[in-house]
């Protein structure tokens, strides 16, 4: 019963906010945000288009990184923030005005590699975690050869490229590896900047583009990047074995299949009545699901002045309707309908 009331309330508020939005637009509202760099390409497109659609609203977003975005939100120097690693309970408790977390888009993490003459590569579930723990060190390792009978794998050392900066992408990637492999979990574990094996075959590069450039310049290299960057630069990526045992390439469909197994609880955020929309898909179950996918969140205050609240609600509505259409071309995954409904409902708590 309560959910249907919620829905009516949500629709009413959204309708009202659209009306308010158009009147607010003349007031030259300006929003300042900061945070994750992973959704930056799609966010900046949204901000530009949203600004055009609601003339007068300006949004400045700085892609400083998830951690810095959360810090800014806690310090109250921004109107909203963005994070790939959501927020933990301790961080949320530091925000006096309360927070609303909304998943606005999702992405995949792919393994890009550089091997001359090998255009297709299958990596089994027990193999790719071992590459990142430093146990498998040669491209012609039996386990890799067994999964790729047709490929000519060279007798070459695997150079593993990881992020030198702390990053949400690393958080998602190591989360998946920890889920799949107990060995990875105990030796390295999940983190935004974990301690990788200290051997000379591990190299660190800054940001997604740094890793992409290093892989392209290093024969025998493998590394993890956001699907969007791989798509943009045309990097060769491996097909990964998912929980169902199929080798899946990253893409819009396999990504959507991964999101389909996301489970949202009906619980609320700690000490708040805002629905908890934090969900991790560390190992999606679907037949055709790509194994490494994750949402990325917009973090807004629960309470702020009416004008800004209205604009943020407008923006969220824009992002989950019109905005989702540009997901695919930029390498992101469109949100499933069920998630959009939940986001719309949660957005009404931004007041």
């Amino acid at each position: 019963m309560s959910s249907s009331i919620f829905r009516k309330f949500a629709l009413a508020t959204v309708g009202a906010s659209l009306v308010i939005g158009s009147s607010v637009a003349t007031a030259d509202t300006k929003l300042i945000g900061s945070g994750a760099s992973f959704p930056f390409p799609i966010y900046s497109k949204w901000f530009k288009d949203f600004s055009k659609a609601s003339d007068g609203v300006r949004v400045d977003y700085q892609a400083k990184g998830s951690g810095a975005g959360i810090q800014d939100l806690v310090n109250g120097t921004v109107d909203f923030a963005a994070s790939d690693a959501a927020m933990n309970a301790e961080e949320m408790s530091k925000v006096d005005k309360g927070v609303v977390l909304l998943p606005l888009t999702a992405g995949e993490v792919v393994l890009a590699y550089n091997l001359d003459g090998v255009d297709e590569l299958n990596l089994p579930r027990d193999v790719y975690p071992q590459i990142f723990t430093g146990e498998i060190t040669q491209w012609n390792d039996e386990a890799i050869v067994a999964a790729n009978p047709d490929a000519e794998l060279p007798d070459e050392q695997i150079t593993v490229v990881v992020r030198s900066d702390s990053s949400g992408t690393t958080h998602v990637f190591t989360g998946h590896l920890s889920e799949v492999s107990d060995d990875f979990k105990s030796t390295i574990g999940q983190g935004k900047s974990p301690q990788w094996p200290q051997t000379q075959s591990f190299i660190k590069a800054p940001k997604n583009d740094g890793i992409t450039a290093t892989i392209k310049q290093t024969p025998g290299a493998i590394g993890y990047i956001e699907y969007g960057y791989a798509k943009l630069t045309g990097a060769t990526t491996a097909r990964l074995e998912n929980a169902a045992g199929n080798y899946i390439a990253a893409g819009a469909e396999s990504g959507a299949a991964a999101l389909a197994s996301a489970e949202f609880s009906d619980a609320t955020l700690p000490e708040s009545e805002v629905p908890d929309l934090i969900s991790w898909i560390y190992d999606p179950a679907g037949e055709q699901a790509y194994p490494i996918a994750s949402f990325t969140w917009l973090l807004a205050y629960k309470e702020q002045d009416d004008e800004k609240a209205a604009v943020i609600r407008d923006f969220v509505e824009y992002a989950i309707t019109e905005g989702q259409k540009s997901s695919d071309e930029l390498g992101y995954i469109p949100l499933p309908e069920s998630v959009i409904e939940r986001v719309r409902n949660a957005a009404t708590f931004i007041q």
Partner: protein
Amino acid sequence: MARHQFNISRSADSVSAPPSSRELTTDTVFRGIAWICASLIIVLTACLLFKIGAQAVPAIRQHGLGFIFGTTWDVSRETFGVLPEIWGTLYSSFLALLIGGSFGVAIAIFLTQEFISPRLAAIFRTIVEMLAAIPSVVYGLWGIYVVIPMLRPISEFLNAWLGWFPMFSTDLAGPGLAPAALVLAIMILPTVAAISVDAMRRIPYKVKEAAYGMGTTRWEAILKVMLPTASSGILAALVLGFGRALGETMALAMLIGNSNQINLSLFAPANTLASLLASSFPEAGQIEVQALMYAALVLLAITFLVNVGGLAIQQYTVRKFEGKR
């Protein structure tokens, strides 16, 4: 008595006159401004130290000296250690100084000891100094796209034939110490060359004439007379170059591989303090920021020690080669 003389010269209607009150005020004001500017530099340094120090205090208290000897940097487990970074900073800077320093001094000799016409020397000098104007990022990109592919076959050859020698014990996969040190050497070259040229030029011409007059050959004159005479200036150039190499960030972050390990091999990836700071700061949480501040303090201490050490050696050579002052 001085006043008396002023009066006399004035009465004699000469061109000299005692300073007017306006000139005296200008002098006092200028003196004041100079004092303020000079002390501001000291205040600024003190502020910087205080700010970084204050933020590093929690990390210093928690990790103590273990921070300097630790080899792990794991944010999620809150273990921080910078020994690999200290090693990488010193090793890469030392290699850069070895290459950039010898080339820099050689260029200085070439440009000042009449090997080529003065006009040509001026052109050469401008070109060398132009190297200093190239942004760090451009050096980094050049390193990635030119130096690393160029070094790769050399490293494979050296590793295959001389692999028993610790400095060649690995081959170069991608980024690593050798390309970083090489690019760093080119970056400090203009500093070393320009200051060494100045030092060589400051030698009075009669010193050279005297050397030739005593029947020395050109090389004897350069190696036994000119270089020792200019040694304090050349040492200053090397110290400045080393300091620059210690603090260089962007190009190194792109080329060195940022790997926390201590390895003698020239072709293994390593890490430096400046590169660690640059790559970790943007996403660091509160606890990591404190550890990073501690690392910054360590870097400051290293540069300070290098400068003081360099100064001491310089004083020593001044006494030895240029007579007491």
